[in-house]
């Protein structure tokens, strides 16, 4: 390792990597509320942000936290909050407000077991559907799922980039084990990873429309105080931001929320494969489970079974086309998750009829060891 690299080597927790990733991406506003197992993110940022002139505020609850984040983003900040299941539930109404008002922001959800207070100190992957469908109404979500400390850093940077690029909230789903486990990583140098910023308007204030329908459905975004004086409302609104009840304007707005992400899903979708080239059986999993799945695939290969692994790093929009292509010659799929079945429904939705889909779920608060996945592979082979 070069000296420079040694200087940038860190032994970090997943939660700390989220902090470092957010700062790398230019975070300058954090609002949060203490909740296990995400609290290290708030603690880390309460130390770091004041040192660089960024803003840290501990709000009175999670509802207020995400509200402050959205307010700050409209004032021009790159803003984030971090929470876990119960807090994520509390935030849902205002996350919907961020979708509707097309406000960039990042939410890190360090998943724990539920429902309700559930298992504050135990791992789970049961917020995957909440990240997609958590708030009421129609919208399209972006959700990323890292599986290592390094990926916590990278996917947090990516979450900011995507939120700025698409003017939308982006959720990073980690989990209790990932948040608390330590791994070595090299902090990228400035410039090594891409850092994006929202597009600012280049028209006179009189022409500015905060929700203008553009060719790529994403409107340039001015901040409060920059001379544009626009209206932001959670009510369904026209391009200028004023509430509307006109059917054509309502449809246009909802289509915009969907199309700005769906038409450009190639920019968002990201997945990793392991030994899929000649695989007859595929294990699909994300986050912490994907680590075990890769080990299970290696064990299977040692046992001369043609097994591969697929790990979506982007959970939403779901990588339909990419996974379908990977499964072209695969007859059997094992979907392994730390819940009672969430991603498995997406796989069943996209696979051809002749593909057999098997579900392996664990929801007792424990991690899924490679052996458990290997046993399932042997069972279905």
């Amino acid at each position: 390792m070069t000296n420079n690299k040694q200087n940038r080597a860190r032994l970090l927790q997943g939660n700390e990597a989220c902090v470092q990733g957010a700062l790398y991406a230019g975070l300058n506003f954090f609002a949060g509320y203490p909740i296990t197992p995400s609290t290290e993110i708030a603690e880390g940022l309460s130390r770091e942000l004041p040192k660089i002139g960024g803003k840290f505020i501990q709000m009175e609850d999670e509802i207020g936290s995400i509200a402050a984040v959205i307010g700050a983003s409209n004032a021009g900040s790159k803003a984030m909050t971090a929470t876990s299941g119960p807090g994520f539930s509390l935030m849902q109404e205002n996350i919907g407000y961020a979708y509707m008002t097309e406000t960039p922001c990042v939410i890190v959800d360090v998943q724990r077991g539920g429902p309700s207070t559930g298992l504050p100190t135990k791992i789970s992957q049961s917020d995957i559907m909440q990240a997609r469908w958590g708030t009421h109404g129609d919208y399209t979500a972006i959700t990323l799922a890292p599986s290592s400390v390094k990926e916590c850093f990278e996917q947090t940077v990516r979450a900011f980039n995507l939120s700025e690029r698409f003017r939308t909230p982006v959720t990073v789903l980690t989990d209790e084990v990932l948040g608390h486990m330590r791994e070595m990583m090299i902090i990228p140098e400035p410039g090594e990873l891409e850092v994006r910023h929202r597009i600012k308007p280049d028209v006179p204030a009189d022409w500015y429309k905060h929700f203008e329908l553009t060719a790529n459905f994403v409107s340039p975004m001015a901040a409060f105080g920059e001379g544009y004086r626009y209206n932001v409302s959670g009510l369904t609104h026209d391009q200028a931001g004023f509430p509307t009840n006109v059917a054509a304007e309502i449809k246009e707005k909802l289509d915009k929320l969907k199309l700005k992400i769906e038409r450009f899903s190639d920019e968002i979708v990201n997945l990793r494969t392991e030994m899929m080239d000649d695989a007859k059986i595929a294990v699909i999993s994300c986050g912490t489970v994907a680590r075990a799945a890769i080990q299970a695939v290696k064990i299977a290969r040692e046992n001369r079974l043609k097994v591969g692994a697929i790990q979506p790093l982007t959970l939403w929009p779901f990588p339909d086309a990419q996974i379908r292509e990977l499964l072209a010659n695969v007859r059997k799929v094992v979907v392994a998750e730390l819940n009672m079945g969430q991603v498995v429904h997406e796989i069943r939705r996209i696979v051809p009829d002749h593909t057999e889909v098997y579900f392996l779920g664990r929801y007792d608060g424990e991690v899924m060891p490679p052996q458990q996945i290997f046993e399932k592979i042997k069972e279905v082979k």
Partner: protein
Amino acid sequence: MATDVQQKSDVTHHYLRAKKKFPNVWCAGCGNGIVMGALIRAIDRLGLDKDGVAVVSGIGCSSRLPVYLDFNTLHTTHGRALAFATGVKFAKPELKVIVITGDGDALAIGGNHFIHACRRNIDITTILINNKIYGMTGGQFSPTTTAGAHATTAPYGNYEKQFDISKLAIAAGASYVARGTVYHVQQLEKLIQGAISKKGFAVVEAVSNCHTYYGRMNREGDAVAMIGWMKDHAMPIQAAVKLPPEKMAGKFVTGLLHETDATEFCEEYRMLVERLAAKEESK
């Protein structure tokens, strides 16, 4: 007199959004428009730059107010205006941030944010339009509905207790607490002006009328009768302090009720950032 009216209307139009589709959503005779006028004139008197003002609201009749105004406006979710406004102000302290809210919005669903904004003493002016009822949803009782009064969810009379808005704000740590009415417009204008000028968290309760629901269900008459009631029952604080309690029965106090100087939240944070920077430099 005619020129005075003309001047006032010119001032008002200067701050209204030309592109906004009027008329507004309020019933004829609603006090919300009077509060909007008072706010506009207060801002005009202070000579604030339109670009430097952000007006934030929640949900309800009163919360529709910012949409008509030519400032940076954020119409948010029910009860959360102060939390959104906290984000706006803290992110960009140079903005003058004004929150428009109602009794249900600020004190029921938003009660937590209200007390914590007071406690932080963040430099936000809150204009709480108190019409003692949920107007937009059709006349349900709120945390300020008078005991015994009728509402669509209190068909036999309200059996709940009320919040005293000013006492709540003072106890929670607000720097400036005032009460005006939509009858006493000039006083209201001055109180709002004072609130915006105050560095710290300021609350102006604007006692208003909902003749459509509250007035009709409680036989308090039309807008004129309800606003007339304010004229007869409001007692300026200067006079109120001199009156014996029996003379104050049935009356309510108006004016600047509380003012104190305490370090403002964004200022406190700025000093922390400076301290840390100085520490870094001395290393």
